[in-house]
């Protein structure tokens, strides 16, 4: 055999760099770069502007808004004057109630939307049946569904979850469909040519090929789920962060509004991060590392 060997010289060196060392190195570079300081500065600037407009100078139209000092004091207080702080169990009840609803709606939307999208993309006949309906229903704003949701469901709880589900469902289905359509024809040909049966093609080409789009869809779906949830809770809730915001407005307990808003921000960010994390686990092949 006279095939020239293409042994990678750098391979041994690369293997010695452990994951931990690489992470430590990246962290060090990050601290050396201006990025973390700009982030902190941006945050401080935002708080300063908020403080000056609402609490220091009490500008017109701003004087009624809760300032950062009032909000943070209330939030961290063991004995909050409006009844909501990190020491009060009711605060967590609202959070858990909202999270449960999103979890139910998002889970259902994923369980139904992903298979539906995959089938729509895979079988053209099925797509032709369903796509026009999907495309017509999808752009309808979730708030427009509120009356029907209330008429359809006997309990308010179900109506809220239904609204949240609808928004998430359309986003998931459409992105999954686009994901299947994004798969290059050449992979189907290669799979068939290598002797795959249809079910092999479905599980080894359609599903993994659509995965990047599916996860983009799930992130969008999570975003719109929170959006619809808050809208639903404001209209018809008894518990939940959306209800808390609206109720505090009605009851003139303004600092709580901001506490609930910021809480929503953090939970939304965390749920997106969780989806990205699962996505990265399932799509190791998307990670581009230094090729040895």
């Amino acid at each position: 055999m006279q095939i020239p060997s293409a042994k990678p010289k750098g391979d041994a060196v690369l293997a010695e760099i452990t994951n931990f060392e690489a992470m430590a190195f990246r962290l060090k570079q990050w601290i050396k770069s201006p990025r973390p300081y700009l982030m902190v500065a941006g945050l401080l600037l935002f708080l300063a502007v908020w403080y000056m407009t609402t609490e220091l100078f009490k500008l017109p139209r701003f004087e009624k808004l809760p300032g950062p000092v009032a909000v943070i004091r209330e939030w961290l207080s063991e004995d909050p004057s409006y009844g909501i702080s990190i020491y009060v169990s009711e605060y967590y009840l609202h959070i858990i109630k909202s999270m449960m609803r999103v979890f139910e709606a998002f889970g259902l939307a994923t369980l139904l939307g992903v298979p539906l999208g995959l089938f729509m993309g895979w079988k053209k006949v099925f797509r032709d049946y369903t796509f026009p309906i999907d495309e017509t229903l999808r752009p309808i704003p979730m708030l427009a569904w509120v009356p029907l949701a209330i008429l359809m469901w006997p309990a308010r709880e179900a109506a809220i979850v239904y609204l949240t589900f609808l928004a998430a469902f359309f986003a998931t289905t459409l992105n999954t469909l686009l994901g299947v359509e994004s798969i290059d024809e050449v992979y189907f040909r290669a799979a068939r040519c290598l002797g795959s049966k249809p079910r092999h093609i479905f599980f080894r080409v359609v599903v993994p090929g659509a995965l990047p789009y599916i996860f983009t869809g799930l992130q969008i779906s999570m975003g719109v789920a929170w959006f619809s949830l808050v809208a639903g809770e404001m209209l018809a809730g008894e518990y939940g962060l959306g209800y808390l915001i609206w109720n505090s407005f009605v009851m003139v307990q303004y600092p709580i509004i901001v506490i609930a808003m910021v809480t929503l921000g953090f939970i939304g960010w965390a749920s997106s991060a969780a989806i990205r994390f699962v996505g990265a686990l399932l799509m190791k092949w998307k990670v581009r590392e230094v090729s040895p």
Partner: protein
Amino acid sequence: METKGNGNAASGRMVIDSISKSYGMGPLRQKVIQDCSFTLEPGKLTVLIGPSGCGKTTIINLLAGYEEIETGSISIDGKPVKGPGGDRLVVFQETALFPWMTLMQNVTFGPRMRGGRNSREIEGDALSLLQKVGLGDFRDKYPTQLSGGMQRRAELVRALINSPRVMMMDEPFRGLDAMTRELMQEYYIRLFEEHRITNLFVTSEIEEAIFLADRLVIMSYRPAQVRTVMEINLPRPREFSMLTSKEYLQYKKDALEILHEEAMKAFSTGTATCVADFLEAYSEIEEKK
């Protein structure tokens, strides 16, 4: 080195008998392939060459069964060919390695799909083939972590491991840089000389064509027909030193004369790209003389 499926060397005779294909509807209908006939001899490497855009990929698609022929017939070892099948494997122009599978998973895909053998056996075969093309250390890498040349080699292995009767290569080294391309040609010719599976290799590069071929099929411009069939009687194993031999240069000159005529025809029908491609190749040999 003992390889499975060497019995294929005796079979894998593919006869293409006056096939035709048109595209488009109504008045726009255009004949792309017309009465095209040639034979792939068992265990031989046939190279199909012609100006860009003459319909070479269409011929591959017809032979692979992805598209249907209008007239004529295609048969392997006397049996007519219908639809895609495991007896013919195609290595595509662009990489078709599944990006979501490791190299090993990609290479063992075909045998796993067909079943019947245990995975350790399959992986053993795959590894020995991967080592032969210098990819043994990369078995657990994903395609995006490999260079273009490595991907092409992996694809060769993925096709070869199935011991098909006929392997079809659709301009597999296109887009690689000159040095990688040369390396790929060497890997490819060694694998072919070892396994002797009937091969059809499509290219628009004359030097590559003559270096690899037992038989050179030169296509005309549209509608594509077989213009000439040249037997290339250079000794095997092929070495790059042959590229300067008298015989080689004579083959090249003969082939280029025919291709030149075809390019001129293409020029008169007004397709600029293929003419540019061709003139570049042609002027090269003129300079060397």
